[in-house]
């Protein structure tokens, strides 16, 4: 699996958080959000620039951020919106499912 430089080395406020050159994930869900977006792109579900544009919109005017958690919240929001817009998942079902995880009704993890 090749690392795609367009993804790995995006620039500006949408740049992946790094420390010492390494990618930073401060919680497992961030890595999952990252991996899901890349997996969908590789599966041809969307072009990376489409995701990138959404991400930049989510980040908005905020400058580059050191905080991986905040960055990946934007990432996840962009991914959710794109996934719903492309019909990959249903928005309401997503909300319901998240509720199940939050309440502990569902606990399957990846």
């Amino acid at each position, binding site marked *: 699996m090749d690392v795609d*430089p*367009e993804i*790995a*080395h*995006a*620039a*500006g406020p949408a*740049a992946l958080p*790094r*420390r*010492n*050159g390494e990618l930073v994930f401060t919680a497992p869900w961030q890595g999952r959000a990252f991996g899901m977006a890349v997996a969908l792109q590789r599966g041809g579900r969307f072009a990376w620039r489409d995701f990138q544009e959404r991400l930049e919109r989510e980040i908005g005017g905020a400058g*580059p951020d*050191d905080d991986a958690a905040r960055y990946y919240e934007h990432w996840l929001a962009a991914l959710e919106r794109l996934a719903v817009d492309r019909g990959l998942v249903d928005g309401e079902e997503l909300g319901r499912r998240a509720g199940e995880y939050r309440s502990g009704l569902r606990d399957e993890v990846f």
Partner: protein
Amino acid sequence: MNGVHDMGGAHGHGPVVVEPDEPVFHARWEGRVWAMARLCLRRGLFNTDELRWGIERMPPARYLDASYYERWLTSVETLAREKGVAGAGPVRPSGRNPACEAPPRPRFRAGDRVRTRNVHPAGHTRLPWYARARRGVVERVRPPALLPDTNVGPVSRDWEPVYSVRFESRELWGESGRAGDAVLLDVFERYLEPSATEGEEEVR
């Protein structure tokens, strides 16, 4: 060539400026340029020596003013033109570097005293200006590699032994050098000749 890119030992460039936690690419186009160049390399449109040579041929002021990826971009543009990508005629790729079928036998061994030639090729070379006509000792024999000087279009593929050669700081910089410190430079065999052994004063 004795171009501005060959800057080992040059004065006047100032302190090293470090940007803390800098991004790999400072702008989107940089990543595109990097990816494009790597794809061209992978597909054999041009080779790494040609990419470097394209950069080295930039006018000096332009080279110094350009950012790192601007240099790459300039070189890729130059090569695209030269390889016929940007014209109506056929594309003339250099092809990818072949494997080495018959490795040449190294002339020198670790511990041998050598001297770099006093050569000043106008074309591409990887013997820096600061290390010409200098005495050193072979530290290690490396695997053979394609001589960069002749691997730029039209390519003639010359496999040469390569050596890590140790040059004492005083040998390179005279009194400005520091006894005990050294530079280890990777030198192609064609750039070397044996150093006089008897009666030659050793610089420490």
